[in-house]
C-alpha cells in the first residue's frame, strides 16, 4: 500500500471504505475488488455509493481497467480532477 496518498486518492479511498464499511487501513491497493465484494449487485451498489459520495460520474471506459482497490481509487481520483 502506498504510504503517501494524494488528496484525491485519499478522498476516493475514504469513500470506498465507507461504501464497504471497512477501515481505510484494511484496503490495500493490491486487493482484488472481487475478493472484497463477491456479489455483482453489491459491487454495483458500492460503485454507485462512491459516485454519490464523491459527486463524480464513472463511465464504462473507467471501469474496464479496474480490477483492484488501487485501480478503483485511481479512476475515482482522476474524476475528482
Amino acid at each position: 500500500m502506498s504510504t503517501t496518498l494524494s488528496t484525491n486518492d485519499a478522498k476516493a479511498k475514504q469513500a470506498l471504505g465507507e461504501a464497504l464499511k471497512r477501515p481505510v487501513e484494511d484496503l490495500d491497493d493490491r486487493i482484488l475488488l472481487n475478493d472484497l465484494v463477491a456479489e455483482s449487485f453489491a459491487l454495483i451498489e458500492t460503485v454507485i455509493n462512491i459516485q454519490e459520495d464523491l459527486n463524480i460520474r464513472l463511465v464504462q471506459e473507467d471501469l474496464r481497467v479496474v480490477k483492484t482497490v488501487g485501480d478503483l481509487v485511481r479512476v475515482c481520483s482522476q474524476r475528482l480532477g
Partner: protein
Amino acid sequence: MISENERWILSFYRTSEISGSLFFGRLAKSLKAGPIQHDMTKHYADEAMHAWYWTDCLNKLGVEPLELGNAYQDQYLAAAGMPVNIMEILAITQVFERRVINQYAVHSRAAGVHELVKSTIDRIVEDEKWHIKWIRDALNKMESEYGKSTIDDTVERFLQADREVYAKTVREHEERIRELFPK
C-alpha cells in the same frame, strides 16, 4: 390447484420481483435525496408488494412458492456487463421493465389463465407502466449530462443483452413454456 409449470412460472415472477426489490432498495439507500431517490424508493416498494402479491396468489391457489436460484435479471450482468452509473442502471431497468410488461401481457392472454392470476397481473402491470414512465422521464432529464446518443447506445446495449437472456431462458425452459403459452 394449478399445474407444476404454472407454479414454476408464478414462482419465477415472485423471485424476479424480490431480486428487483432488494436491488432498488439498496440503491434507494445509497442515492442522494432528490427526484430519482424519491421515485426509486417507490419502485422498490412496488416490487416488494409484487413479490407479496405472487406469494399470496400462489397460496390462494393452494400451493407454496418454489425456491428458485437466480432471477431473470441476474443474467443481464453476464450478458451486458455491469452498469457503472445511475444512467446505466436506469437504462437496464427500462429494458427489463419492458420485458416484464410484455411477458405479463402474454401470460394474461394465454388460454385458461386462472382469474386470480389474471387479476394479479393486472394489478402489477398498472405499477409497471408507472415504472417505465418515471425511468423514461429521468433518462430524458439526464440527456444534458450524458448526451442523448450515449443514453440511446446504452439502452441498445441492454436491449441486445435482454434478447440474449430471453432466448436463453426460453431455450432452458422450452417444455414448460410450450405448455403454458402454446402458439
